[in-house]
């Protein structure tokens, strides 16, 4: 059984946000209008978070693409009273929109703040709904939504594999954000397959996980920015 995970190489990330738009298009994520933006009620299943460190001239700005961490010990699942969010055996923390009662315990419990509440009914002025991905449902007002690691793509890939009577091939299932990344800073695959690129990168000395000390065991692994000095003088 696969354990799906993602590695994001911060050294290669250009902060272009192609992943952000790719995700929104793929998953029919509602976009904000000027008034909603003003209230900060935007929904981004993956968003770019800037971190400013220090003051001029010793300053550094870091950019962190932030999807759901798909924790092995997800705090959001613990608090959901109706089992609207749970973790699959393959490690995907999923959200069952039809079952969500909108209590928002999970948005509060998530230390990564990557769960979003639908404050408004879906509003896609005609003919914008023509571009909706038929593989993903549009969420109603009052439910929480989040990154599903493009779970629908796994279902499709697996159905294909079963139909052709073969195992799922590496690379057959890739979330939209990973697929879109122009500098190829994101890598996706089976963390339990020691030969997969994602597992090898996850063992890199540059690898770290966000808020590891909370014991959430995230399956999104970041690679810290490379050391320039080691490479330019060589």
């Amino acid at each position, binding site marked *: 059984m696969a354990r799906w995970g993602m590695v994001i190489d911060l050294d*290669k990330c*250009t*902060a*272009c946000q192609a992943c952000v738009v*790719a995700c929104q298009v793929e998953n029919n994520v509602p976009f904000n209008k000027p008034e909603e933006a003003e209230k900060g009620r935007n929904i981004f299943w993956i968003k770019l978070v800037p971190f400013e460190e220090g003051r*001029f001239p010793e*300053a550094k700005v870091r*950019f962190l693409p932030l999807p759901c961490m798909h924790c092995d010990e997800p705090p959001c699942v613990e608090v959901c009273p109706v089992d609207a969010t749970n973790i699959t055996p393959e490690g995907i923390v999923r959200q069952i929109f*039809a079952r969500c009662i909108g209590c928002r315990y999970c948005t509060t419990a998530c230390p990564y703040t990557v769960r979003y509440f639908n404050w408004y009914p879906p509003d896609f002025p005609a003919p914008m709904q023509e571009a909706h991905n038929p593989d993903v449902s549009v969420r109603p007002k009052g439910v929480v939504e989040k990154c599903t690691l493009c779970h629908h793509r796994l279902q499709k890939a697996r159905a294909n594999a079963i139909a052709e009577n073969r195992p799922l091939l590496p690379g057959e299932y890739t979330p939209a954000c990973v697929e879109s990344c122009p500098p190829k800073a994101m890598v996706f695959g089976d963390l339990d397959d020691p030969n997969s690129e994602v597992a090898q990168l996850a063992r890199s000395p540059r690898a770290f996980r966000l808020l590891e000390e909370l014991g959430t065991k995230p399956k999104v692994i970041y690679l810290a920015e490379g050391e320039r000095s080691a490479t330019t003088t060589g």
Partner: protein
Amino acid sequence: MKLARRDFLGLAGGAVGGAALGRVTLRGISRLNEALAPEPALYPGEEKWTHSICSMCSGGCGLRVRTVGGRVIKVDGNPLYPVNRGGVCPKAQALPQWLYHPDRILAPRQRSKSNQPWQTISWDEAVNTLGSALRRLRQADQQNRLLVISGRGNGLVSQLCSTFLSVYGGNPLFCLPSGMETSQQALELMAGHPEANGTETVRLAYDLENSRYILNFGCDLLEGWATPGHTLSLFGRWRDSNRGRRTTLIHFGSRLSVSAARADEWVPMEVGTFGAAALGIAFVLISEDLYNREYVTNSTSGFEDWTDAAGRPHIGFRRWVREQYRLSQVTDWTGIPSETLVRVAREFAAGPGALALGPQQSPTQPGRLSDAMAVQALNALVGSVGARGGVALLLNRGWPFPTKDAGKKEFSTSLERMLSLLEQSPEVLILDDAAWLFDVLDTAHLEMLRRIPLVVTTSSLEDATTTMATLALPDCTPLEKWAEGQTPTAYPQELLGLTEPVLSPRGESRPWLEVLLALAQATDPAIAANLPWKDLPELLRASADQVASRQSGYLFGSEVDEQWQRLLERSGWWGPDWNSAEQFWEGLLAKGGWWDPVGWPAEPQRSFSTPSGRFEFYSMKLDELLRAKGGIRAASQLPLDWDRQILPHHAALLPSTDPKQFELVLEPYEPLAFFGGGMRELPFLQQISAPYGGPKGWQSWIELSEEDARHRKIKNGDPVWVESARGRIRRRARVIEGAMPGIVGAPLGGSPQAGRWAVPEDSLAEILVPITDPVLDVRSHTATRVNIYKV
């Protein structure tokens, strides 16, 4: 393979849900499937993958488009397209939102004045209205009262349009500048203009893929620069440990841009001192004897002191730099510590693949010639002109325009010339994909626009151009027409892309090229005789036949094919992918394009097409140009400081105003989301416009340093006034802790000015004070002294 719903649930439930039984109830699984699995009854049709080419900016990345039941669902990069090899920037990702935008203009329409309501008309009426206006002007011999401004790249549409204009009355076609103009001119002056026959021009190109150490003088590489799809993917390759040594990127500049933040090192410096910094590095290279002595001795001129034909002594570049650009002096000008200059210069000279980029190549700020020459002098010192990983001037062949007598086509990117024509109250103004123009127009210009009797827009969306227009001839998105790709700005290889429409145009929208062909008929059959094609495919076919006969290049293939082709050509082989024009056309359509992967010089360039046949630190062409400009005859005595103007040099940029009044310097820039102008109407792009997490879209902001904000008691998100000598505008403040004090970053673009999500906002152009290059007489910078205070 089609699955019945029952089978599908069985399979998916078995695979996904089955193993989860330990924790999830059966009811849960069925609900999950309900929520996530597609409903076969509702599934809107067959899924297909087709190819197209983006036209959101002039770059033209290859696209792979997913359609379901004839609807476009998702756009990604085409892995076979050499420019982007699979990745695309966020603008291309947002293409479906453009295609299905609720404010698309779906039929031609007309109104008497820009404040009157629109009336939908037929295409015949629309074309005849414009055609008769053009005919009237031509009969009155007032062809110069037609002004056409475009935002398209240098493809067939632009060529057709400029041919139309040249036959019509010798009018120029004004295009969006690429920002490379000044750097290209600097290199042309120093390294010469390669031999080109009548129809070919040259273009500036960088072999960034093979660069190993890049000194970037102010280019916003990761924002609006060249072709984002290409540059962004290169950035990943530079830092790919599988490719061996990492490419080091050093960013010089005053603004803490995304490029500065993501570079290996950001060297903050005073505004307008790129030339001084480059010459400071040259000082270290020369005084520490780090420059490429062999190259400089054998392939350059003007390095040592010399005497011209008339016996006048001239100072050499070596002595010029050693005397005038001592590190203490350079530090005074630039604010860069001398240790940094020394360290960077040593690293720059340490290996092959060193490249100096810049200065400041953005469409509205191409930089100054003297700075650009200083940067190119650095490239010459390390032997990177015409070398692997360096800079070169290449022939710009593009799509051949298949007509015998095209007349003299003229493309102009001079904003000054365009604005001066605008001031002469033209009768007809055609704005073709020209939303970018509104970033450089202030209220006075907009007033001029309102007085023009016939303003035509080709915009497919309600945008700034439609608010001014009285006749709309809506174009469609690239997905709805034959898309042609051409060599992108600064790209090192020659390339032509071609794809069929992904779907038919929405409503009555029609490709501008086909409208132009009809317009030629309606204006004058004599013009139409020069443009004998019935539609775009016919023109493309005629052009492709000429490419087929060039006997060079290959159809697109994988990266493995590319390596193999390079290997073959180095050994003197060329295996054609086609035997006939017919086969070439079919191959083009099947593979998506043609390119020449071996276009970059294989051996370092040794001879240059300058008067001396060498790279000239002292440009004889510039010498000639300045003499002509100043009316100095060849034999006459030259002013004492003559050499100073010709050699790469530093000169103060910003006019000295009372520093107490305007303490800050505002630097405009193009965020990636609005690169190439336009597309402010797409919510997806609005949401990502500020990577620094500024106000989340739909409004413009300014970025200022924590120190400047503290002094002015300004907090993040506060509304502020930004005031310059020309006026003041309102913006939201974004405080950036690490930004350099005294510098204000201001994005171009901003909220939409038309359509359902319009948010009225002052244009940045209201307060900008453009600075003109003293030699080229074109706008070089729009950095402006400002003050900022709370509303």
